[in-house]
């Protein structure tokens, strides 16, 4: 187990080394490098806890053409292998009676019996069904492409991104906070959620362990003896209830599906984040 972990770390390190170099600007230079393991007990990496808040889908996805065909075939096979139900038996009887009525000349005897045909029943049921207005699968937020609203893309997982100022640049990232001594990293992520939503949102955290990480070194100007770079650890949570307040948050947050992440996140950060997001 330790052996394969070591191998994967080395493999990733190789990829990381390929990306070193080209970034020279102040903060876009998130050059990844293997941490030179400090001999002292105090690690030079600052620890940050980040929150990967997901809004789970409310609606099932549309079926692909193959799936539609298969569903139709299975339904057909089920009908072929079944017995007649009461409803169908009644339909057969009534069809027989109608045929008989047409061929016979006497029609008055039949009218005393129940006039309510199966066809009438089915029409009544149809009318009742049409009166019910279900919720829309494609919401107005989809139509307007309003990415700040939670009620968009109801069939996908949506992730929360926030825009923060790092140095002199605005960067889109997953909400994060600095780790303070005396708390666990999961507690840091919970704190992030509380401060971000002002205690309006409730989420279910999926376990104590982080689901992913991102490591970067500070640019030369910012490096000190104690802080060489930072490690961000992501914690997954599912949104249960709540949303942001309307005022004051415009332009600072966005709910985004996995394909749209590329519009916002930096490449290396994106690469790390995509690994722990399930593609539905």
């Amino acid at each position: 187990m330790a052996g394969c972990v070591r191998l994967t770390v080395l493999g990733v390190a190789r990829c990381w080394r390929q990306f070193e170099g080209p970034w020279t600007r102040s903060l876009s230079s998130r050059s990844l490098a293997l941490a030179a393991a400090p001999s002292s007990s105090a690690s030079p990496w600052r620890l940050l806890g980040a929150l990967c808040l997901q809004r789970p889908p409310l609606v099932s996805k549309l079926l692909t053409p193959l799936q539609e065909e298969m569903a139709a075939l299975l339904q057909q096979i089920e009908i072929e292998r079944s017995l007649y139900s009461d409803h169908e038996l009644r339909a057969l009887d009534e069809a027989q009676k109608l045929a008989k009525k047409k061929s016979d000349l006497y029609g008055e005897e039949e009218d005393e019996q129940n006039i309510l045909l199966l066809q009438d029943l089915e029409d009544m049921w149809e009318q009742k069904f049409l009166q019910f207005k279900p919720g829309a699968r494609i919401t107005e937020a989809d139509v307007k492409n309003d990415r700040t609203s939670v009620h968009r893309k109801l069939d996908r997982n949506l992730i929360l991104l926030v825009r923060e100022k790092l140095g002199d640049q605005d960067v889109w990232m997953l909400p994060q906070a600095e780790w303070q001594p005396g708390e666990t990293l999961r507690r840091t992520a919970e704190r992030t959620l509380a401060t971000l939503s002002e205690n309006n949102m409730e989420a279910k955290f999926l376990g104590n362990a982080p689901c992913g990480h991102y490591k970067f070194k500070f640019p030369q100007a910012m490096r000190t003896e104690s802080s060489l770079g930072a490690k961000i650890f992501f914690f997954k949570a599912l949104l249960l209830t709540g949303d942001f307040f309307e005022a004051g948050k415009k332009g600072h947050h966005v709910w985004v599906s996995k394909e749209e992440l590329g519009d916002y996140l930096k490449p290396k950060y994106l690469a790390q984040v995509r690994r722990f997001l399930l593609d539905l």
Partner: protein
Amino acid sequence: LDAAAGTRERGAARLSDPRAAHRGPDRLGARARKRPSATGRHGGRGAESGSAPAEPASGSAADADEGRAPAGFVAVVLGTRAHECHVSTRSRGQRGKCLVFALSFRAEPLQKKKKVDPKKDQAAKERLKKRIRRLEKASQELVPIEDFITPVKFLNKARQRPPMELPFEENERRALLLKKWALYKQCEHEMERGAIASLLEAQQEALQELKLSAPELHAEATKRDPSLFPFERQGPDYTPPIANYQPPEGRYHDITKVYTQMEFKR
């Protein structure tokens, strides 16, 4: 005489101690309290097992001889006296009891209720147990599985569909579709497996990094989260929930059959 009887009694009590260990201290006290009036014999009975030198009184030896009267005799004597007295039963396993006689001239043989009562109780219990066992053997009804019992109305032949022969093209289409579906499902499974493997890999790497920089945080991260399970979530439906929806009024009658099975110990 009384004094002698008293000493004899005490002596008898002393002698009786090693043999009558099961008797409580109250017996001795009771004996001391309830001195029968004319029981030189009564006191003397205690001496029959003991050795003579233990008797402090000199006149006890003669009385001891006299005192070796059979229990029944003594009982009869006592019975005619209409006094509260002890029945000294020296044999092991039997406990003397305090008997009260209402009439003096009812000279019935004394019944040891304790002998018969436990037997009667035991007999009654055994009879009950026998009945219970018979009931057990008779009925061990198992809870019926409703899915395995075909309701009678579905055995009607009129319900069966007429046998249908599918045309050749339809069969071909179905076979091809099933093959395509099998391939699609295989690809889907491989994709899911890959996704899960990549999730796990990312998590293991994150834990490794955490271990390198902060071992104590790593230890806390690898602890179990007891609040995670049982994990319940409503799955996605075809349409989203409507805000402020008023469901139609009506009552819900639950007609599921509930069976209780009695469990008998064997």
